[in-house]
């Protein structure tokens, strides 16, 4: 009897050992991530060609920030702007900045970094024919001059409060000789920077291999990277990413939907972090020339009272997301939170609608783009409770924005990421500053924003943004929804800190 049990146990153990060995054998490269010091990453979307100035997608920008450096760097933990390729800088006149450059920095191709690189890179990308993707990032630069080998002067074309933010890693410096010879396409094909990682292989849009740059300059705000090699692949199907992560072949994935993050919890490391992007419903009182119920402030306020935003955000966003009262992210500079707030109160909503002459309710269209359908449907269901019939129409982002700018929509449900920048200028001025996306056309509001955007005095800026934020809430021009969060799925032995600007900093990552 004992013999039989022992034999059985031995057989069982052998089988277990064999299975483990087989699994270990086939998964060997995956389990060796820590040992080989390789970070295996997957994105769902294909990164764009790695010329930062022409990239819109976050994936390409993340890779680019590992390869290139800017003159300055923003330490998000302290909120301070710190030196990077520039050692120091100062405003010598309201629209003139002078930079002293760091010495002894080399590019990945061995070329030394000097004033010529700064001058030629920035002067090239401000030209309209270069085709820089976001004009807002460079159109404030009038010209860049070389003072000597290690000093440059930037003259601004207009007052722009975001200038320093832009110089902080958003405008990378290219090696001037290589850049002059090969242009944008050449930079994308062979990215060469001064960053903590250099690109050793790429199959554009498919696979990228980065290696730690041994000669990365001392004193860099990006510090000494601890991970030796980073392999980035595009895996469009999230379920496939989960399988790879669970089997150990991947160490880092992101943008996991909340319901799936919940299910993965316990099997892998899941982190949820808030980001700059916020969801909103924009109303267009001006577009419809007063014919729409939306033109009535009381109606707009009633619609917000009627929507159970707390429940909607909990159910469909979860994680680190919270309901907002402001048309900007509380994490942004100038986004004052002391504003009128509209609680969920259908009774009051009904009373306000009756007061505005819409006691019988009304019908209205809402286009939504790049937002989850269940969320739009939940809003429509809440509004139906107070007699308002919301006709939903889901569109591609481009189609929705096109209709908004053509003033065809009374309400638009979408989101805005502020380019990941923690400054109210990058959201309010676009939607309320009088431009093409401003369907409110409130002159007073635009005036405050212009003052705030162009002043360099922080107190003055703060004061004017505060007035704007308060008026937008008071007038209920927007129904602010929530700040987005991002769920990251990580290997259990990876130490990684997410940041609200959605730029993954793998140079800070390490193994536990």
């Amino acid at each position, binding site marked *: 009897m004992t013999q039989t049990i022992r034999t059985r146990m031995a057989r069982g153990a052998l089988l277990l050992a064999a299975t483990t060995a*087989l*699994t270990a054998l*086939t*998964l060997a490269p995956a389990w060796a991530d820590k040992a080989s010091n390789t970070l295996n990453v997957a994105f769902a*979307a*294909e990164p*764009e*060609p790695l*010329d930062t100035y*022409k990239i*819109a*997608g976050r994936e390409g920008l993340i890779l680019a920030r590992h390869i290139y450096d800017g003159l300055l760097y923003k330490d998000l933990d302290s909120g301070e702007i710190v030196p990077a390729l520039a050692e120091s800088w100062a405003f010598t006149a309201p629209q003139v900045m002078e930079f002293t450059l760091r010495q002894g920095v080399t590019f990945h191709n061995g070329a030394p970094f000097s004033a010529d690189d700064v001058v030629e890179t920035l002067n090239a990308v401000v030209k*309209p024919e270069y*085709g820089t*993707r*976001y*004009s*807002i990032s460079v159109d404030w630069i009038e010209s860049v001059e070389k003072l000597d080998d290690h000093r440059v002067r930037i003259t601004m074309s207009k007052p722009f409060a975001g200038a320093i933010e832009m110089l902080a890693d958003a405008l990378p410096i290219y090696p001037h000789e290589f850049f002059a010879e090969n242009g*944008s*396409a050449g930079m*994308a*094909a062979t990215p060469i920077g001064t960053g903590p990682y250099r690109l050793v292989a790429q*199959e*554009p*849009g*498919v696979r990228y291999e980065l290696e730690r740059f041994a000669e990365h300059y001392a004193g860099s705000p990006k510090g000494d990277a601890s991970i030796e090699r980073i392999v980035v*692949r*595009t*895996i*469009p*199907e999230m*379920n*496939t990413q989960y*399988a*790879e992560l*669970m*089997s150990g*072949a991947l160490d880092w994935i992101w943008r996991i939907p909340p319901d799936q993050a919940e299910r993965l919890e316990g099997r892998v490391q899941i982190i949820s972090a808030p980001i700059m992007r916020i969801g909103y419903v924009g109303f267009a009182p001006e577009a419809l020339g007063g014919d729409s119920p939306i033109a009535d402030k009381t109606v707009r306020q009633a619609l917000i009272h009627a929507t159970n935003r707390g429940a909607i955000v909990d159910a469909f966003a979860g994680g680190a997301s919270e309901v907002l009262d402001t048309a900007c992210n509380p994490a942004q500079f100038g986004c004052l939170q002391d504003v009128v707030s509209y609680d969920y109160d259908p009774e009051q909503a009904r009373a306000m609608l009756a007061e505005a002459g819409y006691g019988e309710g009304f019908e209205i269209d809402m286009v939504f783009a*790049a937002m989850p359908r269940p969320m739009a449907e939940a809003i429509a269901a809440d509004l139906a409770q107070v007699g308002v019939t919301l006709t939903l129409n889901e*569109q*591609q*982002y*481009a*189609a*929705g*924005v*096109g209709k908004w*700018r053509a003033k065809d929509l009374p309400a638009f449900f979408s*989101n*805005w*990421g*502020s*380019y990941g920048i923690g400054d109210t200028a990058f959201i309010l001025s*676009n939607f309320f500053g009088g*431009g*093409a*996306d401003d369907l409110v056309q409130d002159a007073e509001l635009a005036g405050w924003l212009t003052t705030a955007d162009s002043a360099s005095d922080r107190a003055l800026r703060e004061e004017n943004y505060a007035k704007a934020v308060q008026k937008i809430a008071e007038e209920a021009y927007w129904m602010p929804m929530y700040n987005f969060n991002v769920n990251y799925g990580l290997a259990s032995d990876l130490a990684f800190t997410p940041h609200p600007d959605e730029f993954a900093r793998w140079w800070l990552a390490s193994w536990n």
Partner: protein
Amino acid sequence: MLSFLSRRLFVAFCVCLTVSGLSFALMFLAGDPAIAIAGSGGRAEDAEAIRIAYGFNRPLLVQYFDWITSALRGDLGQSIYFNIPVTEIIASRIGVTLTLGCVAFVVALAIAVPLGIAAALGPNGWIDRIALMIAVSGQAIPSFWLGLMAIVVFGVWYGWVPISGAETWQGYILPVIVLSYYAVPELMRITRSGMIDVLSTDYVRAARAKGLPMHLVVSRHALRNAILPLVSLSAVQLGQLLSGSIVIESVFALNGLGRLAWESLLRSDLPVVQAIILILALLYVVLTTLADILNAGLDPRLRGGA
């Protein structure tokens, strides 16, 4: 035969022209490409600059005419997203799709034809029932589900094959199995019904009456006649396998043409979308023409009509 070919070529040209014209118009109906390219966060000024840079502000007909005349000269333009020639991107992606599609097609044929013949030889027998079951499940199970299940079982639990990617040939094993699974039912059903029809004809009965062994009756007399519809269907199936592997390519992270088409569509990369549609239209035309020629070779009666 020559007039048959020239007529087919003319039809092919018209098909490609119509398909590319329609798809060009559809791309613009789906939203302003300039805003799509500017991306989320793109301001009206950015979209306007893109509109001018890529000439989207010109009349649609002028844009189409420009594109088609360059395409006829072999110039498919630059990808807006990747900023490199379209031909270069397609060349780097087409290999994966061709490998996947052709291997899956051969596997599907190797399973479907013998199974179809066996089913026809014993209608309502157990082989026929199993074949029917495969056919029904093959048409009912969504490919992404089957793909993910295969990944979980063979990739995660057993770890026998890579979960995704095409860096090694093993990466093709699961996608080929899943993709071919969807081509089997139709090919098998048409082989079966063709065989059943032929097996009940007088000449087959005569062949059997003169004492010819069954395998010779099948291979010499029945199959050659039953195969005609199979050839036509095969052309369409191969076309579908090559053009319709978007889901499989996404699930298994294979960077083929299908995925490129889908992603390019999402980011309004018009030159790439147009080029892929043109290539796929051409592919269908070539395949169906080949099938017609093959059938004409197999059945002299078809040549008379041509």
